[in-house]
Structure formats: C-alpha cells, structure tokens
C-alpha cells in the first residue's frame, strides 16, 4: 500500500489493490436492494410514500463504493438518501429535510453510514441537529466504514 503526503485524510491517496486476492464468494448475480428514486438528499421528498414510517438509511456517497455487501447487509429493507458532507452545497437544507423526515414522514429509525475520514462525521452532526430540533424522537444509529470496506464502529447516537 502506498500513500501520498496529502494533508487531508479524506483526500489522501492510498492504494490497496492487493486486496483483490482476498475476494470471496463472487459467483452469481445480486439483485439491487434499491426501492426508490431519486436518492440524493437534495432531491428526495419526505412526502414520498416510501419514506412514511420507514427505516431510513442516510449514507455518505462513498460508503456504497467502499462496502462490498452494502446492498445485502445495509440497504435491504430501508429507504435511502445519500449526501456528501464534504463537497455538497446548501447543507443547511439537509437539517430541515431530515427534520421533516422525522416529523412529517414519521420515520421509524435513521441509520447514518459514513466513511472513517473526519470530514464525513459532519453527516452525523447534521442528523443530530435535526433530531434536536425535532419534537419527535427516534433511534438514530451511526455506522462508520473503513476505507477498505470494513465496519469500524456501530453506535446508537440517540
């Protein structure tokens, strides 16, 4: 594995191509577990029927690429919204939108999936702010994914 000396851990170049040899169980096709469109947090509507009382997954953009079993283990059975807390513009509206998911769509739970890089933690902070502003309280879980696709932590944040 090689790494550049870039200062930001979120943008630091890393090469883990040797992981190819560790690949297991690659036979057969897998069905997508995506049940809706659109999925970008700016574009989704809390009024959409698939958000009502749903278990919602709010995922940082990179998670779906890093996690090999993302569809099977994390997306299945959930309604999704994706965002990038580092690069997306207009993130103030994310707070209101997640608050609306909690209050108007009466979602059952929210799972936030982020990458281990520090800038990703902003997504958890956004969800926590939404929850603090919301009159309704729900369980919120944070799952942190390593850049090599391993689960680093799973914690209830509310």
């Amino acid at each position: 594995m090689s790494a550049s000396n870039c200062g930001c851990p979120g943008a630091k170049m890393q090469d883990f191509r040797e992981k190819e040899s560790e690949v297991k169980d690659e036979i057969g096709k897998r069905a997508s577990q995506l049940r809706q469109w659109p999925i970008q947090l700016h574009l989704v509507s809390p009024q959409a029927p698939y958000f009502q009382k749903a278990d919602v997954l709010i995922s940082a953009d990179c998670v779906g690429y890093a996690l090999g079993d993302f569809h099977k283990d994390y997306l299945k059975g959930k309604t999704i919204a994706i965002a990038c807390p580092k690069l997306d513009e207009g993130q103030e509206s994310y707070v209101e939108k997640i608050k609306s998911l909690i209050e108007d769509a009466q979602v059952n739970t929210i799972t936030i999936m982020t990458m281990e890089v520090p800038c990703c933690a902003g997504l958890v902070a956004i969800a926590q702010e939404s929850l603090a502003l919301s009159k309704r309280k729900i369980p919120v879980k944070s799952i942190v994914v390593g850049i090599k696709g391993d689960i680093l932590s799973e914690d209830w944040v509310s």
Partner: protein
Amino acid sequence: MEKYLNTPIKEVITRFTEVGTILEQFNIGCVPCSVGSCLLKDVVNIHNLPDAQKIDLMYLIEKNIYPDRKIKKPKIKPCAKKIDNKEIKYSPPIKRLVDEHILIKKLLALIPYIMEILDVKTKSGRELIVNIVDFIRSYADKFHHAKEEDILFKYVDNNLDIINTMLEDHKAGRFHVKSIVDALTKGDKNAIIKHLMEYKKLLTQHIKKEDEILYPWIDRGLLITQVGEIFSKFNEAEKNIGEKAAKKYKKFIEDLENYTNKCVVKGRRLLRRTTTKGGRLK
C-alpha cells in the same frame, strides 16, 4: 452431557456445586438466582461469550460433571482469571429501561436507612411507607415493568425460562409490596421491614440479571425496525400513563434521599450524644 445441557441450572449446581464456581469465573451469576430454571445450554448461549471462552467453559463443566471421563481439552488458552466486563451498548429503548433501573436502585439503596427511621405509630411515618409503595406500584411496576411485559417481552419467545424467571420476579415483587401494605394496616413494623428487605434483595438481583444478561441478549436479536417500533411503543405507553409520571417519581426519590439523610444524621447525632453522656446505650 446432553442430559445435563437440558437440565435446569439450579439442579446442576445443587448436584455439582463446583459448576456454580466455574460459572462465576465467567461472570455468569446463576448461583444466587432465586429461580434457576434456565437450562444449562441456554445459560451458556445467552451470555454471549466469545467462542473460545464458551468452549473453555463447557470443557470445565463437563470435566467437573464427569471427572473420570477422558475429555479432550480444547486447543485454546484456558481462562483462569475472571473475565472483565465489557462495556454494554444498549439500543435507545433498552437504554431507557436501564435508566429507569437507576431510579429504582436509588430507592433500594435507601431501604436500610428507611428501616432505621421507620415509625408506624405516627401519621408521617405511615405516609412514608404509603409513598414508597406508590413509587413501587406506579413507577417500578406500572411505568417500568409494564413496558417489559406488554411490549419488550412480546419480541422474544415468552416460553423461554429466562423470561419466565423475570415474570416470576415481578410477581414476587408484587407479593412483597402487598405484604408491606397488609403489615402497615396491622401496624406490624417487623413485617414491613422483612418485606422491604426481601424486596430489596429480589430487585437488586433482578435488575442485575436484566441489565447484564437479558437486555443485551434481547438487543442482539432485534432488527433495527423492531428497535424503532419498541421505541415508539414505549413513547405511547408513557403517554398513556402520563408523561409527568417520570418527573414526579424522580422528584420523589430526590426528596426521599434528602429526608432520610436528614433523619439518619439527626438520629445518629442523638445516638452519639446519648452514648457519650451515659457511656452506653439507653
């Protein structure tokens, strides 16, 4: 060994006392359990031991039950030392139950002091017991145990011994409370003390079993959607009981802590003065 795996743990420990000590080494506290109807195999499975420790535990138990039998020792490092408690992470609804236990434990901690100042002859003394009974019935039972019995336990197999053990504990608690009320009517101070002590002993063990074994076990089996459902049902249940109940009983315990503290300090000061003056207790 199959026979003993399907035997209630109390029977196993009664017959092979060393098994209780072995379980304690693995932080499995079946020895003081008042019921002990859980099967040995369930006891081993429910405690979420890492595989290596589970194999180690089963080897030690089997060796104790059949000392003459040649049992192949598993190729793992035996756990000679006590195993450290891992930090338990509860889901939000289960965490709420654990937090409610904190208030109940505060009452349990006050019971020895309440016994010191107990006076069934005065109106204020009788009121104190009435208020304690109200806390146990309304908060510990209606507010807390009802959430377990009507909601949480519905998510697991109700026929499991561990659930039956918890339900039996709830029943036993209600019996002690009823006995306290009966004793108060008769002005029987000794009976009140006896049942308060029994209640303290029962609930202390009960809460430990729930916090350390039952709740983590239930949590491990819950899907995220069930966690959300339970959370929402708990909210609904609390709304029905009255949302002010939690605040009211939290305040009651705070006041009770201050009151018992004042009374005990005053009483001990008086006692010290009496012993100093007279040289001995009057």
